[in-house]
């Protein structure tokens, strides 16, 4: 039987290392500071691009996200791992996606970006990562108590294609309505003219990098939340070795490119309110743990036919709309006017899900 090299220790280290290198290079090629790749931020930008929120500085149809799903879809088909499935408590997953995004936007980044911020010298990433670890740890307590969203069911192959097709549709929209210099709208798509949304690498490079990462991550099962979860739950460091490789490779490339700027104040697209960096990521980490994957992993699962992961992704995109429409997202100036309330509500919702959704058979 064909042995999956990517599933070996060196496979996961290789994929983590490549993500780190590409992320640092994408930043050099135009993506925002310490945001070569950020799944949460980029899904938020997509929500803005289609007008779900009107925060003018974060609207761009990020091709990296599209590439992640399409790359994973291709890998799953080539290696006969495409398994269309859905039906494991979708509404709970959708809700977890919403609050995962809100938590991530209080910190200003998904776990990938937390690692990239660390690799770029942003000290605030440390409290964010500690918060993430705390949230995942709480999630493992629920898992030990029998928390389980229930079995999924095999479904039509075409149901598994919906998320990849949706992403393909986004790409087509981008080609039909390309960015016009200095204009904030092209056809039906919004494009930021300033702020992080205006900073991006060339479309062709972004999509290509996205596809390569999506392919490798599907094969290797790269997952930042899983790295912490498996460490806490099973004392396994398999996935963690990929995460560490990501930080080291991004750090080295940042050093070479002059993108390493150590400090806490004035870091790109970041604030230094430590408590809320911690709490935002605690919420996000708990939501990821309860949903079974970090935002990146959910995209790769969606690409291989997992409809429940696709629902989580849609939850995150809608969560981004809530976050910006309701003033929940942070900015470099600090937390949003209602960000703190949203974190508290989010943690209560996650605890409700964690306490009430147990496997009846155990």
């Amino acid at each position, binding site marked *: *039987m064909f042995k*999956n090299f990517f*599933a070996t220790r060196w496979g996961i280290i290789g994929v983590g290392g490549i993500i780190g290198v590409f992320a640092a290079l994408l930043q050099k090629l135009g993506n925002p500071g310490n945001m070569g790749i950020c799944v949460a931020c980029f899904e938020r930008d997509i929500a803005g691009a289609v007008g779900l929120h009107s925060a003018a500085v974060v609207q761009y149809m990020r091709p990296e996200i599209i590439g992640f799903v399409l790359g994973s879809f291709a890998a799953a088909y080539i*290696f006969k*791992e495409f*398994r269309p*499935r859905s039906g*494991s408590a979708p509404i709970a997953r959708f809700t977890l996606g919403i609050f995962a995004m809100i938590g991530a936007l209080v910190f200003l980044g998904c776990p990938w970006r937390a690692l990239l911020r660390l690799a770029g010298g942003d000290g605030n990433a440390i409290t964010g990562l500690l918060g993430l670890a705390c949230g995942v740890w709480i999630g493992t307590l629920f*898992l030990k108590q029998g928390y*389980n*969203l229930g*079995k*999924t*069911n*095999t479904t039509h192959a075409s149901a598994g294609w919906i998320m990849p097709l949706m992403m393909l549709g986004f790409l087509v929209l981008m080609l039909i309505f390309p960015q016009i210099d200095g204009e904030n709208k092209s056809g039906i798509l919004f494009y930021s003219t300033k702020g992080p949304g205006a900073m991006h690498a060339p479309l062709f490079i972004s999509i290509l990098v996205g596809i390569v990462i999506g392919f490798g991550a599907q094969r290797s*099962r790269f997952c930042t939340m*899983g790295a912490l*979860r*498996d460490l806490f*739950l*099973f004392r*396994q460091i*398999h996935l963690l070795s990929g995460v560490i490789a990501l930080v080291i490779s991004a750090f080295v490339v940042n050093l070479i490119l002059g993108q390493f700027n150590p400090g806490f104040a004035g870091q790109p697209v970041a604030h230094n309110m430590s408590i809320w960096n911690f709490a935002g990521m605690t919420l996000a980490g708990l939501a990821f743990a309860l949903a*079974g*994957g970090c935002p990146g992993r959910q995209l790769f699962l969606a690409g291989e036919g*997992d409809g*429940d992961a696709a629902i989580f992704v849609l939850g995150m995109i809608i969560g981004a709309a809530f976050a910006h429409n309701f003033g929940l997202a942070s900015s470099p100036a600090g937390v949003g006017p209602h960000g703190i309330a949203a974190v508290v509500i989010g943690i209560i919702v996650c605890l409700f899900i964690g306490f009430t959704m147990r496997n009846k058979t155990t």
Partner: protein
Amino acid sequence: MSVIVDASGLSCPQPVILTLNKINELKKGEIKVLVDTDTSKENVSRAAESQGWKVTDIQSNLTGYEITIKK
């Protein structure tokens, strides 16, 4: 006779949790674990081997895999 752990339809980390629970309960013997994704197959195999169990057989079927582990 081997004991069956049915983790089909369950996503990570449930198949691993169920397998490890059974391993801790039995200490030794033969367990067949039913999973439906390649990720679960790899994770269950890795977890069993970390506990000193051997993966002796992996059967592929319509809905997924049947992994046999022994100690």
